[in-house]
């Protein structure tokens, strides 16, 4: 588009334009606020985390504070079973959650991309949980799962299950229960992103495929899916990172329980720092989490050949 515009425009002398309207410093001035904010409140704290990860740092035990070398990391990898448990649970959580979100989100996007009566209303309704997140989702599902007055009670009234069961406090049901609650708000988000990209698929392609006699399933595999690939790769990655990092939902829905079975690594870190004040150790865990995320993302982008031929 830029080249096309450059060709089409009348030949204005570029030198005069640069002198009058584009001082050298302008782009720097424009990004300055964003850059300063991000340096001060992301980059600087990140450096702080790396620094603390090498320290023994606990305000409640000041006599032990000081340089600790790699002790925190050694402790995490060799002596702390909780670290491994939470890491495994994080992987399980992200994998199941994002996989299901992608599957249902794609299906939902394909459905509401069709033309049908009531489409606008249907879209608005099925997308609405997107606006609701974290704590509110928890509040809603705490009400639904409540052992006294939640759906289990009405199911028991109907002869299914037993009274007084709470899916959130039983180690065997808490995982699916939390997954369903998170799907409720996650699927619409995925669907919105995929729908946005679906709308840019050229109709001509389908018409051509139609003429060639391709079935709808074939069209989906050979036209829709390849077109969506980059959007799917990127939104899956972003979503996975967010699902991994986000602690709002599990913090308020299960508090990491029962018996710690729904504690993700970030939740464990939050508990270690906010409740136990073990900032040094929490920073080491954060560093590990950051490295794992970065590594997985790079591998993922490589494997999925993101971006393909363009650029």
């Amino acid at each position, binding site marked *: 588009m830029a080249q096309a515009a450059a060709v089409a425009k009348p030949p204005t002398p570029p030198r005069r334009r640069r002198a009058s309207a584009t001082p050298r410093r302008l782009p720097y001035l424009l990004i300055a606020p964003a850059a300063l904010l991000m340096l001060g409140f992301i980059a600087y704290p990140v450096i702080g985390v790396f620094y603390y990860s090498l320290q023994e740092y606990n305000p409640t035990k000041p006599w032990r504070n000081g340089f600790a070398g790699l002790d925190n990391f050694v402790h995490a990898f060799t002596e702390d079973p909780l670290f491994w448990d939470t890491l495994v649970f994080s992987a399980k959580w992200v994998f199941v959650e994002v996989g299901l979100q992608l599957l249902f989100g794609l299906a939902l996007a394909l459905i509401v991309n069709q033309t049908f009566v009531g489409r606008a209303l249907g879209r608005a309704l099925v997308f609405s949980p997107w606006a609701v997140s974290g704590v509110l989702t928890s509040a809603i599902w705490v009400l639904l799962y409540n052992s006294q007055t939640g759906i289990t009670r009405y199911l028991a009234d109907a002869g299914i299950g037993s009274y007084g069961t709470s899916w959130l406090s039983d180690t065997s049901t808490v995982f699916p229960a939390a997954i369903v609650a998170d799907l409720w708000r996650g699927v619409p988000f995925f669907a919105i992103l995929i729908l946005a990209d679906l709308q840019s698929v050229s109709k001509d392609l389908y018409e051509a495929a139609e003429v060639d006699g391709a079935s709808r399933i074939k069209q989906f595999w050979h036209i829709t899916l390849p077109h969506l690939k980059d959007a799917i790769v990127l939104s899956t990655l972003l979503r996975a990172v967010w699902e991994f990092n986000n602690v709002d939902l599990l913090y308020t829905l299960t508090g990491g329980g029962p018996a710690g079975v729904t504690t993700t690594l970030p939740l464990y870190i939050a508990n270690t720092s906010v409740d136990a004040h073990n900032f040094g150790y929490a920073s080491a865990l954060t560093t590990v989490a950051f490295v794992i995320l*970065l590594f997985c993302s790079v591998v993922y982008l490589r494997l999925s050949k993101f971006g393909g031929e363009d650029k």
Partner: protein
Amino acid sequence: MHTTPEPPRPAKRHRNWDEVPRWQIYLPLGIYLLFTLIPFYWILLFSLRPAGSTSLVPWPMTFDHFEKVWTERSFGTYFQNSVLVGVVTLLMTTLVALAGGYALARFNFRIKRAFMLGLLCSQFVPGALLLVPLFEIFAELQMINSLGSVIIAETVFQLPLSMILISNFIKNVPYSLEEAAWVDGCNRMTAFRIVVLPLLRPGLIAVGSFAFVHSWNHFLFALMFLNNQEKQTIPVGLNTLMGADSVDLGALAAGGIIAAVPVVIVFAFIQKWLITGFSAGAVKG
């Protein structure tokens, strides 16, 4: 419109894609709609029916829970705080991201690649995990217990994605339009305001509403940086309603409704722009 499935006629074959059998749309959509709406109905039900009732319709209806939450549980104050945080975050994010996005879309400058890399990397930085160093920074700035700390934190974590989105929106506005305005004697600022800004409206609405909804819903920053109950925001208020041993379900439901109303209203208005906004500016740069 077409309620009866039509037999495949060669003349209409090319429109086949648009004519998926109706039941294949309405059945799954209906099921999904139930999944979406039952939780909403549930919270509405609990907020409107008297405590102790097990009726599945909110009748007789009572607004006691709302009154109680609004006054006794300080949701009135929380609401004001949340509105303030949401609106200021929206304005700051949009303004700062607009400036930065314009620079990224229209200029080549030396640190551009490094800056873009920084934006991408920041996506991997978990906000929740920076709580402690951020707390120390805000303590140093004497901003603990001031809404400013939450506003800054929310803005900063919204910025990277907002800036990428806005710069993509700007790239979609032909540069020649701006150049034409310069030729007509506008300076860069005026040209931007008159020519580019109106075309950016859907994108700005999408980005701004994203910022608002995120800061409205986000929980940990407020929990961490605001110790004074008078300064708390809605999600923290909701969490305190959940945390108690004997959960007051009516109050929790009413609090949830209060928390949901602004975002649902925002969402209803922006839905249309959101999708066009995303398809114009999202994932493909």
